[in-house]
């Protein structure tokens, strides 16, 4: 009987979820019932700040984007090691500090490598 375990403090979350879904669907539904439908070409055009759209929406992105994205993912996620370190920093003291300096230094080596390889320059 897994249902009996469900704690009552989750009830507000559940109510909120139902209300949110109902509100979104309701707004769309009411709009669909009451609005006047009179489509013409300019109206159906994608909105790009009043300027006529140029070219296909599916363009090949420059390979540079991927390289920057890869570097971002790697350097961004390494930051998660800083959180547990920060939590216990005062208990470990100097040792933790030295370890983190080494860790950052290793990251720096990678950064230096990427920099020298001109991974950050845009052509």
């Amino acid at each position, binding site marked *: 009987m897994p249902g009996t375990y469900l704690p009552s403090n989750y009830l507000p979350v559940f109510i909120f979820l139902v209300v949110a879904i109902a509100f979104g669907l309701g707004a769309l539904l009411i709009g669909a019932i009451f609005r006047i439908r009179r489509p013409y070409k300019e109206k159906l055009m994608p909105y790009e700040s009043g300027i006529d759209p140029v070219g296909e929406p599916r363009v090949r992105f420059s390979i540079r984007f991927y390289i920057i994205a890869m570097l971002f993912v790697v350097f961004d996620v390494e930051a998660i090691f800083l959180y547990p370190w920060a939590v216990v920093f005062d208990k*470990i003291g*100097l*040792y933790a500090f030295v370890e983190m300096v080494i860790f950052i230094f*290793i990251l720096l*080596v990678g950064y*230096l*490598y990427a920099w*020298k*390889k001109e991974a950050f320059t845009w052509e």
Partner: protein
Amino acid sequence: MDITIIKPILPEIVMAALACVVLILELFIHKKETIGVFAILAVAAVSYVIPQSFGSAFNGMFISDGYSVFFKFIFFINLILAVLISIRYLKIERSEFGEYYSLMMFATLGMMIMASATDLIVLYLGLELMALSTYILAGFIRHDRRSNEAALKYFFLGAFSSAILLYGITMIYALTGTTNILAIASQLQGKMTTQLILAIVFLVVAFGFKIALAPFHMWTPDVYEGAPTSITAFMSVGPKAAAFAALGRVFTTGLIDFAPDWRGILIALSILTMAVGNILAIQQSNIKRMLAYSSIAHAGYAVIGVIAGGAEGLSAMMNYLFIYAFMNIGAFAVVIMLRVEGVKGEELEHYRGLAKTHPLAAVLMLIFMFSLTGIPPTGGFIGKFYLFKAAVGAGYAWLAVVAVVFSVISAYFYLRVVMYMYMHEPEGEPAALATSTPLGLALLITTIMVIVLGVYPSPFLAFARLAIG
């Protein structure tokens, strides 16, 4: 805090630091051979600190013992020989980049961590460091589509297997509340549960992928064929030996109480692996592909050491991998020698009449093929002999017989290469060989070791036995 606690992990720290140095050096040095030489010097530096490293660190998460040190030497031999055979080859493939050597060093670092891990978390980290570096190395010839494909396939199967390994680790953690390999045994207290069987199966599958046990071998032929030949040599020995080290430690330490259960699985996989590897190798016309199936078959033999278990079985497995490192890299070195500008030199046809055109290369290939078959007086015979002896000693005489039968089958495709070299007349203009001093050195080392191990193996065998303790 006492600084001496890092002593057991000092070789790994030195290796990591030097790999970073090599990575940075690459930016400033234009002659890439120099970096290769530096990588070999780095191995010398790491070997120098190993004797002082014995002990356990980080609350028993990491250990430097005889078992791990023996494997580390296999990894060093693997790295040195792979560097030596790469130097000329990379030029021919027009892929001379210095990252190559630092990636090899990082992969070796991962293997070292795997061999020393006594905690599943550390084991996982070492495995990933090794695997991620090897994925890149497999795709190192960027302009070659086959190399790209090899990297992609290796990456997908590797990532899949490490996800499975992680789930296995999670199940062990759920059952025992610990990830320490030594503590697992005491926590489980020999109690068998359904979840534990599932966890064992997941671990076997994950390690099976890494050491290419059938039916988890599908990636091996494609990856070995497409990857740069020097990297094929590198990853047919190093990562395989590292996975064996981890397999040996996890199963014969943490899960030793359940030996009857996992032994059954491993015996089935071992027989299937030997069958698949040896029988499918027969129909290959590409030498690299044939050696890939041969490496699958050899994994099947080496697993027998883990099945036999105990000091006898494990040391036989370690010796086998040690000998295998020399004979397999030697064979790949000959394949590399045939790779010259414009000629791939990977097809069996290219070996037609090699004895006439290049007698020395033919003799070397002959020695390695004999050794891979297990014909005395080569190292391959000694390796197989002690493996089968351990199997008989542990009461698996029938398994040894099966392995011998498959060895006989394997003679067909190994000796076919010899037949092509000696019995056939050369066709057309003989192509020149891509010889170089480092490659010659690698061939010299491997040949001498294969013969010495075959004729006078006792000091090396004693070393493995001593390492187990």
